[in-house]
């Protein structure tokens, strides 16, 4: 029987010859990702950790990223508890405050490889399909159980095949593509499904595939997947991973999909997701002129070198509008360093940008760039839910780094295809 990517990898990890959608299988993931939530996770299983220990010291990947540097005594203490746990249990993959956002770190450090299976107590764990892994989000309780047993159950999902045809127009980016798709199929359009991206994907770098896979959960997907190609192997080589270190898994040619969708990329224009739902997508030209008080370029969705390069090209020699605060949030220390070396950070700061430490920062509204009532923020993040940036009476609009950078200069939402003056 021909199988989809999700069917093939779940068959492999459950030791079955073949599996079908809705079947429940038991799997042992290669890694379990947790972040600042590690503290409440381990507190749930204190006696068990003393009695049985962690299932395997190389299973957990722990990254401190959500509220960094600590914003209060309570969050500082959380970090302290996690550091002690890491030391006592000799956890192999630990990244303290300053390394970056967990999802970026997992990919950048080569901890998610093609054909591997990862679970994480964060909804954007679906990002690693960018490099051909199967990855999905779970809650804290399940992470606690996995920490002890190393295994869990998964339901084999239906699969959706999305074929991307044609070529993107200038100033239109991967972010516009994924927002366009979510606008089309809705925030629940891929619920419980594995979403595979096929077609002219060679025009997307691993960084851009990351942006698209990252937002898989915003269409309800269990995981998102790009087949491994030359672009993936080249990227992995650049971070020191050779092809002998992984076995890529590809869907079979006649695999059966619950839905097949096609998009012509040349038809897509810059888009923006309006409050308070990621699927409330409109063309930028339809909402041009709305004034904004804050802009955010970065996060695990769009905080990589190529994103800041786009922003710097637009902002070079320009000034951010006096009514706007432009926050720059690199997704990792490595991205920060690379952007420094290329002079990108200079450009962004000279234009008026405010540089934040690599982490989740304002994205979840815990600290750094919280909004005031009636303020409007244009952001490259992945969610615009009411209250997401700390204030229920503020509005969040989502767009690409190009749209956000151009808009920051004008002080209002602006189509990036327009010249900046």
């Amino acid at each position, binding site marked *: 029987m021909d199988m989809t990517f999700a069917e093939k990898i779940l068959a492999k990890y459950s030791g079955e010859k073949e599996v079908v959608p809705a079947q429940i299988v038991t799997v042992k993931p290669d890694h379990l990702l947790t972040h600042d939530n590690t503290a409440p996770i381990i507190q749930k299983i204190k006696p068990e950790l003393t009695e049985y220990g962690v299932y395997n010291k190389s299973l957990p990947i722990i990254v401190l990223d*959500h509220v960094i540097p600590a914003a209060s005594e309570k969050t500082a203490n959380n970090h302290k508890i996690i550091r002690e746990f890491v030391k006592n249990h000799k956890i192999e993959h630990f990244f303290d405050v300053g390394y970056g956002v967990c999802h970026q770190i997992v990919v950048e450090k080569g901890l998610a490889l093609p054909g591997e299976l990862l679970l994480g107590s964060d909804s954007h764990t679906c990002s690693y399909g960018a490099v051909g892994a199967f990855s999905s989000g779970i*809650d804290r309780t399940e992470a606690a159980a996995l920490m002890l*047993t190393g295994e869990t159950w998964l339901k084999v999902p239906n699969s959706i095949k999305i074929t991307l045809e044609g070529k993107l127009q200038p100033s239109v980016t991967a972010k516009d593509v994924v927002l366009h798709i979510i606008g089309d199929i809705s925030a629940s359009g891929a619920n419980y499904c594995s979403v595979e991206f096929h077609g002219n994907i060679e025009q997307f770098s691993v960084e851009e595939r990351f942006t698209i896979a990252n937002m898989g959960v915003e269409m309800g997907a269990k995981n998102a997947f790009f087949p491994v190609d030359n672009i993936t192997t080249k990227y992995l080589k650049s971070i020191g991973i050779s092809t002998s270190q992984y076995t890529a898994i590809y869907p079979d040619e006649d695999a059966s999909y619950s839905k097949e969708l096609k998009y012509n990329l040349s038809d897509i224009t810059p888009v923006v997701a309006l409050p308070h739902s990621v699927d409330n997508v409109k063309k930028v030209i339809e909402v041009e002129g709305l004034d904004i008080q804050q802009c955010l370029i970065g996060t695990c969705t769009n905080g990589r070198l190529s994103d800041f390069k786009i922003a710097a090209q637009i902002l070079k020699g320009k000034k951010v509008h006096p009514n706007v605060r432009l926050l720059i949030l690199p997704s990792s220390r490595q991205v920060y360093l690379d952007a420094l070396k290329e002079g990108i950070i200079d450009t962004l700061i000279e234009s008026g940008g405010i540089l934040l430490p690599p982490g989740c920062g304002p994205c979840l509204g815990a600290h750094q760039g919280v909004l005031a009532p009636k303020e409007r923020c244009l952001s490259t993040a992945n969610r615009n839910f009411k209250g997401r940036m700390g204030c229920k009476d503020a509005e969040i609009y989502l767009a690409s780094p190009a749209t956000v950078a151009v808009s920051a200069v004008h002080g209002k939402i602006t189509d990036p295809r327009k010249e900046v003056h």
Partner: protein
Amino acid sequence: MKVWKYDDNINTDMLFPGKYVYTCSTPEEIKPHLLEDLDPPFAKNVREGDIILAGKNFGCGSSREQPVVGLKTVGIVAVVAESFARIFYRSSINQGLLLIECPDVVKAYSKGDNVTLDIEHGKIIVGEKSFFFPKLPEEILSIRDAGGLLPYTRAKLKKK
């Protein structure tokens, strides 16, 4: 028993704002902020045995489990929705919160209707009409029957 009725795409920030996620983890810390940005009187007025009725994609968004822990703590007996987001669905199994995916129930309900739940027979009565919902697969029921994933895991570890 009161029915709390909500729309489509009720996300995790509406159920429990992100700004509290890293400072509130225990049921007592969670309770006062439950549905804070969606329905401010909820936390104060919800009573044990109440039911939530909602549209499509209930619980979409973050993997935070405070919404589920909170709803379980205040005694919500079931959430009936047209559909659920998957992490929320999984999380509810792990906490032993009953979720019922049944679009017909949600569509049949009008304000003021009596809603009765018969879990044993998989039946919901809305006003005069009865609706049946399917049982969960065995593997999942065993987690719920153990009282949630952690008691289930503890029992499994002891057996080994």
